[in-house]
């Protein structure tokens, strides 16, 4: 009980400090632009109109659709391919299996930029820049992190699972689809969220590979909100930031358990 009494104020203080920046975004998003630099900490009247402006000024719908399209196509494909590969490593045997798995792990360590530079040159040669094809190709090649996640998950299933179905004459793919996939939905949920969050939040690849018209919300948000003189509109920007983050926060609340389980399963951060 004594430790409790100390722990609680410490927790509240730490959480409060930690949440200050987030809290400030919400406050700023409801100020008038003229109140931004003022002495008052809080807006006199909450300016919900900022949210409306954030949508119209940035052509929010269009770039949100781009983000949605890109993130959804990448996620669906990468989760399927990574699950197949992770399952293969966990439940099937073949020559060089362990060595190949070490290569999967090693690929997680290679700096992404090192791979990206030559990839970029090839994508440009094949005229795949300004399209979503690079993401589709990355997804088809599976993600080492997600392969690792699925492998750990499928390896934790009891040995007998699948044996019975195999004896009944089901092929390997049917065993995977009918026995393993229905039992693996926490891994699928975690993988979906990791992949989706990565594309939705990524700034670097869209700015290097896409153009002003088909780029994502992440890129648009970094430049969209300025008055005609080029001065930044901080209050409207904050409303845009809130709208941009909101889908992820909602997904996070719905699927918290899976994210945390996924992180613990791989021992890695998404």
């Amino acid at each position, binding site marked *: 009980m004594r430790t409790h009494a100390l722990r609680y104020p410490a927790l509240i203080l730490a959480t409060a400090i930690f949440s200050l920046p987030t809290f400030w975004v919400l406050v700023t998003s409801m100020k008038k632009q003229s109140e931004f630099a003022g002495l008052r900490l809080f807006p006199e009247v909450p300016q919900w109109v900022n949210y409306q402006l954030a949508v119209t000024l940035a052509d929010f719908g269009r770039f949100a659709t781009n983000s949605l399209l890109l993130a959804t196509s990448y996620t669906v494909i990468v989760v399927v391919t990574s699950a197949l*590969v992770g399952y293969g490593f966990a439940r099937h045997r073949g020559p060089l299996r362990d060595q190949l798995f070490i290569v999967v792990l090693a690929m997680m*360590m290679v700096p992404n930029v090192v791979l990206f530079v030559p990839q970029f040159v090839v994508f440009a040669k094949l005229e795949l820049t300004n399209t979503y094809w690079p993401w589709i190709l990355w997804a088809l090649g599976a993600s080492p992190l997600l392969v690792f996640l699925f492998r750990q998950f499928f390896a934790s299933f009891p040995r007998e699972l699948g044996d019975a179905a195999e004896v009944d004459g089901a092929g390997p793919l049917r065993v995977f689809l009918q026995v393993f996939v229905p039992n693996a939905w926490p891994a699928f949920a975690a993988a979906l969220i990791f992949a989706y969050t990565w594309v939705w939040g990524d700034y*670097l690849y869209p700015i290097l590979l896409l153009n002003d018209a088909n780029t994502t919300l992440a890129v648009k948000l970094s430049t969209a909100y300025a008055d005609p003189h080029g001065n930044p509109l901080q209050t409207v920007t904050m409303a845009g930031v809130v709208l941009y983050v909101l889908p992820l926060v909602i997904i996070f609340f719905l699927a918290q358990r899976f994210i945390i389980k996924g992180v613990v399963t791989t021992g890695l951060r998404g």
Partner: protein
Amino acid sequence: MVGTAHALERTAARPRSTWWRRRGTRRALTFYAFISPWLIGFVALGAIPLLLALLMSFTNYDGLNLDYVRFVGADNYARAVNDPDTLHSMQRTLVFVGSTVTLGLVVQLGAALLLDAPVPGRGLFRTLFYLPYVVPVVAGAWIWKIFTDPNGGLLNALIGLVKPEFAMNWIVEQPTTVLVLFTVWALTGGGMVVFLAGLQGIPAELKEAAQIDGAGPVSVLRFITLPLLAPVILFQLVVSLIGAMQIIQQPLLLAPGLLGPGTLPPRDNYLYVVHAYHEIFVNQRFGYGAALLWILFLITLGLTLALVRSSRRWVHYEEAQ
């Protein structure tokens, strides 16, 4: 067991089957069929690009001169060692990595220790610590820009309560401080979850036994919890180190003013990968940039190995039974 015997019998009944019908071969084919997406992807998007990046680093490739590109030997590497921008950016990167990794470890471990008890509202606290981890970098950078804004920022307002008339344009005058705080804030959730998992693996009896022997909370932490958590701490340090060495989006996005493809962060936040990015995509020095990135890879590898080696003195794995 019945199934296995049955299967063996079937194989035995056809000893002269052709090679592709043999059980081992079919098993191997099934395995390779399952992993084929990754295997093909690894060759096309991993191995070949790595080889190209290595070749590129020995050429004068600029993104356009593919037809008359030539090998320049180790010139790019020699140039990197003598480039003041490279040395400056590496120095700033080491400052950033050192502060982020150590402060990050303290905050992540602290949050996990505070939450490793049945306190009321534990789920809510955990969520609040985890939340920044799901906030994308673009949004996170905006959040910190506004939080530290000289005019409308909360940070200066709070400091102003203690020190009236306090004015500091943080992202211009103290860009690395903001970058470190932003990064630590954003990554706390991920590390905290890893440490919480590690803490749950420590048997409660050990702590109870120590408490019965009269150990206070500090002694329990120092002599029981931290030593048993050491493998997890090492893992987290390695992952943070590798991630921090490669950081690029955060310094670019924290740059003052409106951003464009050629925007550079303030000199203090001109980190190594920012430098490589600038050389490649703005100055079109692909060969030189590739060399810079290989040097980074080697330095990161060296630091990681040094960390792992030093850990022999402070990480003791439990004997495998």
